[in-house]
């Protein structure tokens, strides 16, 4: 049931048979948890708020630094020193007052993350370190919540979607089982803004497709993006029956 204002706001969705009013209502009812409000989370949150995802939960624990502004396009110079989730929440509510946005300004321990997952239909992993990525993956496997993972450094991006509501789904740990140490991140390797922005934008696209019922191009797949050539490589991921996270499920 969309209001007159919503019919206008989402008119370009409603023109698409792939979305239409039925799909827009599904977006309105959706609950998405976005973890990480950096270069991935910035475009992902903006696009999901603009698209009318009804309930967004934003999680990060960082304050905005000047070095973030080269790529984290939700923030302005005057926001330096402010909380990332609070600034993003305000920005999203100004963009779309029809949606509900909640912020969690802390590093969530496993127990709190599990509690949040009971209310989430989908999680976007937009984080910047391997330990958190592994923790989110395990929590999503346990809670059977679908997970869209994005990552980027230098001129390279990685994108994958694991639908943990399906017991045969592989998981992030099947792909990268022992990578807690020496993993490359933006602070130690550098990053070009539009590369990480491309990956975050595609996380938002896959989220919208998931809720309106369009098949994903990345389910149980890893997409590698080369920002130098703009080439994509696609790899199939099978469940590792020996996986210590999802193999016993």
């Amino acid at each position, binding site marked *: 049931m969309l209001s007159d204002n919503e019919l206008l706001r989402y008119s370009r969705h409603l023109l698409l048979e792939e979305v239409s009013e039925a799909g827009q209502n599904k977006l309105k009812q959706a609950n998405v948890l976005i973890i*990480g409000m*950096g*270069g*991935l*989370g910035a475009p992902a949150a903006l696009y999901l708020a603009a698209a009318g995802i009804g309930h967004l939960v934003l999680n990060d624990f960082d304050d905005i630094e000047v070095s973030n502004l080269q790529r984290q396009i939700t923030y302005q110079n005057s926001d330096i020193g402010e909380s990332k989730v609070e600034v993003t929440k305000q920005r999203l509510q100004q963009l779309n007052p029809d949606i509900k946005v909640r912020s969690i300004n802390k590093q969530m321990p496993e127990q709190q993350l599990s509690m949040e997952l009971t209310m989430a239909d989908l999680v976007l*992993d*937009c*984080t*910047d*370190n*391997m330990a958190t*990525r592994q923790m989110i993956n395990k929590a999503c496997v346990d809670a059977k919540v679908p997970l869209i993972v*994005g*990552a*980027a*450094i230098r001129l*390279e991006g*990685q994108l994958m979607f694991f639908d943990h509501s399906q017991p045969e789904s592989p998981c992030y740990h*099947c*792909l*990268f*089982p*022992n*990578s807690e*140490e*020496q*993993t*490359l*991140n*933006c*602070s130690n*390797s550098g*990053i070009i803004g539009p590369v*990480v922005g491309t990956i*975050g934008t595609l996380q938002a696209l896959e989220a919208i497709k998931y809720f309106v019922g369009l098949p994903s191009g990345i389910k149980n797949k*890893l997409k*590698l993006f080369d920002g130098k050539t703009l080439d994509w*490589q*696609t*790899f*199939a*991921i*099978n469940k*590792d029956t*020996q*996986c210590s996270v999802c193999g016993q499920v």
Partner: protein
Amino acid sequence: MKIQVNEQALTLPNSMNLEQLLKHLEKPLMGSAVAVNMQVISRSEWTQYNINEGDNISLFQAIAGG
């Protein structure tokens, strides 16, 4: 045996499995992922997968940035 590794032709001196290939190429085992003919091979299966003539092997690293 002739194979492709990350789109470069490579001749292996003898038959080997995927773990032996990474060691042969002096690649780190930690944080690496391996795909053969666009299919990811789980870490637990590296020693069981014997490389075949003409295999197209992709090696890449986990990245965490965001």
